[in-house]
């Protein structure tokens, strides 16, 4: 398709490095609005919620890269690391707001949250899963680990996304459009991957194992 091809060609010309900074503009914007008194009666809650949502958005965007290429021919692979790392950065900021501004470092309450509250357990587990992904996000790590091991490790992104969406759903008081939309998107993106794995698994049983470690798959 001509549109897809020209889009892919245009995307190739976009430098990735500046996008790391562009991705973090919501942080500046939200903190600016918070100090400006523009976030309403409960600015902490808005910050906490928004940073969490941004983390989820970037996570879903990173996970959408492969299905978008497979089903739409859109090549966003150059941006995937940037998207995934942005999800991690927002998770750090989200967690910091929770610890510093929400719970205000009262470790008793944080401790109780950690073993009593499923949504906190889901969120914290998701964060822990993101750490090895962020640490092995460099080109060097890929070379050192080998493509196969690296890819295995980075499958942690799937349970991390599931935990993130559970963290969100477990928190809401009633079913509204927003959480349900994110849940639906997560289900579609992960559902497509599951389909891929199944298909690949089946064909591998029948035929020769598929070639692995094609560098552009990383």
């Amino acid at each position, binding site marked *: 398709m001509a549109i897809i091809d020209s889009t892919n060609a245009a995307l190739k010309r976009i430098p990735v490095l500046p996008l790391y900074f562009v991705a973090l503009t919501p942080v500046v914007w939200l903190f600016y609005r*918070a*100090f400006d*008194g523009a976030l*309403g*009666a*409960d*600015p*902490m*809650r808005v*910050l906490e919620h928004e940073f969490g949502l941004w983390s989820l958005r970037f996570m879903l965007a990173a996970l959408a890269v492969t299905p978008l290429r497979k089903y739409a021919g859109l090549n966003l692979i150059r941006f995937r690391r940037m998207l995934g790392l942005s999800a991690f950065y927002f998770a750090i900021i989200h967690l910091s707001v929770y610890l510093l*501004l*929400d*719970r*205000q470092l*009262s470790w008793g*309450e944080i401790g*109780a*949250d950690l073993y*009593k*509250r*499923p*949504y906190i357990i889901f969120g914290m587990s998701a964060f822990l899963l993101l750490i090895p992904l962020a640490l092995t996000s460099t080109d060097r790590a890929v070379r050192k680990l080998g493509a196969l091991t690296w890819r295995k490790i980075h499958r942690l992104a799937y349970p991390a996304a599931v935990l993130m969406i559970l963290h969100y759903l*477990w*928190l809401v*008081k*009633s*079913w*509204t*459009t927003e959480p*349900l939309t994110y849940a639906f998107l997560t289900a579609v993106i992960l559902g497509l991957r599951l389909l891929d794995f199944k298909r690949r698994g089946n064909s591998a049983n029948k035929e020769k194992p598929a070639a692995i470690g094609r560098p552009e798959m990383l």
Partner: protein
Amino acid sequence: MVFRPAQKILPSEITPKSVYLNRRTLLAGSAGAAIGSIMPSVAHSAGENTRVLQKLETRPSEYSNEDLEPTAKEYITSYNNFYEFGTGKEDPARNAHTLTVKPWSIKIDGLVNKPGEYAYEDLVPAVQEDRIYRFRCVEAWSMVVPWVGFQLSEILDKVEPLGSAKYVAFETLVRPEEMPGQSGLFQALEWPYVEGLRLDEAMHPLTLMATGLYGEELPNQNGAPIRLVVPWKYGFKSIKSIVRITLTEQEPPTSWNIAAPREYGFYSNVNPRVDHPRWSQASERIIGGGLFAKRKPTLRFNGYEEEVGDLYAGMDLTKFY
């Protein structure tokens, strides 16, 4: 050339409901078109609350927490849970301008001597009380609100509950054409929103029917024209825009309990020792204190234990949450 009807006729008796409810909008619209230039306050009606909030006549009350600093009016009127107008905290302030609050009446029925449809004006005393109360939401935030209102017991005394009456049930207005949260694909709760109290809770002098805050009539988003305020219970018990009060023998159903029975009980007294199944109730965020506002430990019965503790003597409050 003055025409006077022989007796007072309510608009509801002669005009279809949808027409008289729209009357204000029609008037505002035609006034805006015809004399917009000389009446600028009526001219801008779209998306904005054109209701003028009247000052209310009040007197001080011994039940008011005069030592507390009220939360800024701006926050009390912009941070609301009123799912009939949307589930976001800012939704009610944005959407509730569509609500018609005049005329208003409350149907009082069930186990009472004098059931009937009571006009707002017949229930609300000319001079009401100023009462500053703590307000604690089940979502672990709190405010201090300077309400204007009168004791619910005044209404109940007027309608004379029968000896068999043990509970008081309340109902919020259902009017999807004015309440956007009551239509559409995803609806947060079942309508009408319903709440209830035990009769002795309802008769307690702290239990307020509020018609105003900060000395003026209630803005629509705060539950105009008349709402319940039970300061020792979580905020969702304080049902808004009430159109019906029913005295019953059985414990009445309550909206959040229907939605999630494990999470919201009938009593819902503020209790730092009984956590919500999904979050802690030990402390609360102060609304309006800014980004770095210090959390405050939550008080038993929201600080009203001395006044209401006796109502629950001998009850296991972890069981009756």
